């Protein structure tokens, strides 16, 4: 998996989820696959050739082997992380969306609230986790709250950009047929905002994942983040990298899901 290819596509994808991956020919696909094989195979060979100890950097084969044998032990932690991520995301995205929809109808309120949203966006919510743990203990609650706080502002700020994209003529069109404010919202504003909302949801989900793992590293006890600290303190590097691999797959899964949604519902925006 070569980093620059993935990074580059993600960067473009943020501008337009719907066109990502469009027109990848079979030949290009083969080239991408070959590159991945060479990179991973090369890594394996180099690590084995120089007999690098596993506690410094395990070869890919050892990581996969550890992942397979220890998967039953890791699975419950994946479950915990998903619970935290999904509930935090649902709460944060819900608030973010509703707030964006309402606030963009009132430009004055938007001006008042904007600086706070900006602070929420730019402050890493991870910084609040120790405090949240102090308030809410070591269970799910502080983690879910941290994820919601990381997700919400991202969803809010991108969705607001979408909702603000008013096309006076399209709204006039709806009005010329006697549309109510609610109809204008659901049939014009919301579809027009959808591509930006999807971008917000995707960035929100990725930030949510980062925050969930970070909170688990701080919070201890359970979750994939907690596994990372545990395995590294036990110097079990193959397992450690196995968890890292699961996390990157989660990130890619998030991206693919929103890519597919975008392709289905927002492909009108070229």
């Amino acid at each position: 998996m070569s980093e620059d290819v993935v990074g580059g596509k993600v960067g473009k994808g943020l501008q337009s989820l719907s066109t990502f991956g469009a027109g990848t020919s079979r030949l290009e696909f083969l080239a991408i696959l070959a590159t991945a094989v060479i990179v991973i195979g090369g890594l394996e060979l180099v690590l084995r050739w120089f007999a690098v100890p596993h506690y410094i950097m395990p070869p890919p084969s050892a990581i996969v082997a550890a992942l397979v044998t220890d998967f039953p032990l890791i699975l419950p932690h994946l479950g915990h992380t998903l619970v935290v991520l999904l509930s935090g995301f649902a709460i944060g995205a819900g608030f973010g969306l509703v707030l964006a929809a309402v606030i963009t109808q009132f430009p004055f309120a938007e001006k008042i609230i904007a600086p706070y949203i900006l602070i929420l966006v730019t402050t890493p919510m991870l910084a609040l986790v120790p405090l949240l743990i102090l308030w809410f203990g070591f269970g799910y609650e502080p983690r879910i709250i941290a994820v919601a706080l990381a997700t919400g502002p991202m969803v809010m700020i991108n969705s607001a950009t979408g909702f603000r994209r008013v096309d006076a003529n399209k709204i006039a069109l709806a009005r010329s047929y006697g549309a109510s404010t609610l109809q204008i919202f659901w049939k014009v504003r919301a579809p027009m905002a959808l591509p930006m909302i999807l971008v917000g949801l995707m960035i929100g989900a990725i930030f949510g994942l980062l925050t969930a793992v970070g909170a688990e590293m701080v919070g201890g006890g359970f979750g994939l983040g907690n596994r990372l600290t545990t395995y590294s303190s036990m110097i079990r590097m193959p397992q450690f990298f196995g968890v890292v691999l699961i996390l990157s797959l989660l990130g890619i899964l998030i991206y693919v899901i929103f890519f597919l949604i975008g392709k289905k519902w927002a492909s009108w925006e070229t």
Partner: protein
Amino acid sequence: MAEGVSGETKLAVRAATKRYGEFVALEGCSLEVRPETIVSIVGPSGCGKTTLLWAMSGLNPLTSGEVLLDGTPITRPRPEVGLVFQEANLLPWRNLIDNILFPFEIKGQAPDRAWIDHLLERVSLKGFEQSFPNALSGGMQQRAAIVRALALQPSVLLMDEPFGALDAFTREEMNQLVEEIWLETRTTIVFITHSIEEALFLSDQVVVLTPRPGRVLNVHDVPFGRPRTMEIMASKAVFDLTNRIKAEIYGQQIAGRAAAE
């Protein structure tokens, strides 16, 4: 009420004035549109044509004066009035047929599928129902917009420079299409354009507006038969009328510039 009963006037604008803050866009504009006629409004850019049309559609209230449809004042959008915008104004996330059904969705009214099919056939868009706007040419988009406006069978169709963004050939085709549709439906049409040729091809009357503030300078009758053939359009009478209207518009512009200096 008298006009409505006698059927002399379909649409009347009475002393229409529109201010945007200090700026006077329209001042004391009056005109009458007889039923089943096409009236074009021409005038330099920014003279208030769109403002006037939106007032007729009930989208944008006047500062003073009134618009009467069949004798009753228009204060908000009415189902009998169809509007075609300056650009096609299709909703890009809907395919063609869903764009045409949009008005029915808003009104919660069952569409007349046979009529819509007939219209699509008429404007050669049959077979493109599932296409999205970004896959249609400018001319096709504008034809779809016309179908959308006609789908509700309005008795008045307001068209705001509908073909301004199209190339000359497509534009002539579209003009012929409007004439054909008019010959079939006899919908009263108010047509805004920058092109005097287009106005003379389509209209029974041409209204010339002056800029800043928009006022009615003159109303010309266009007494030529229909369909307007190439011979008619190439005749001396059309040529002379074109030049008269041009002189009025450019005269206004020159006078305006002189006044500004």
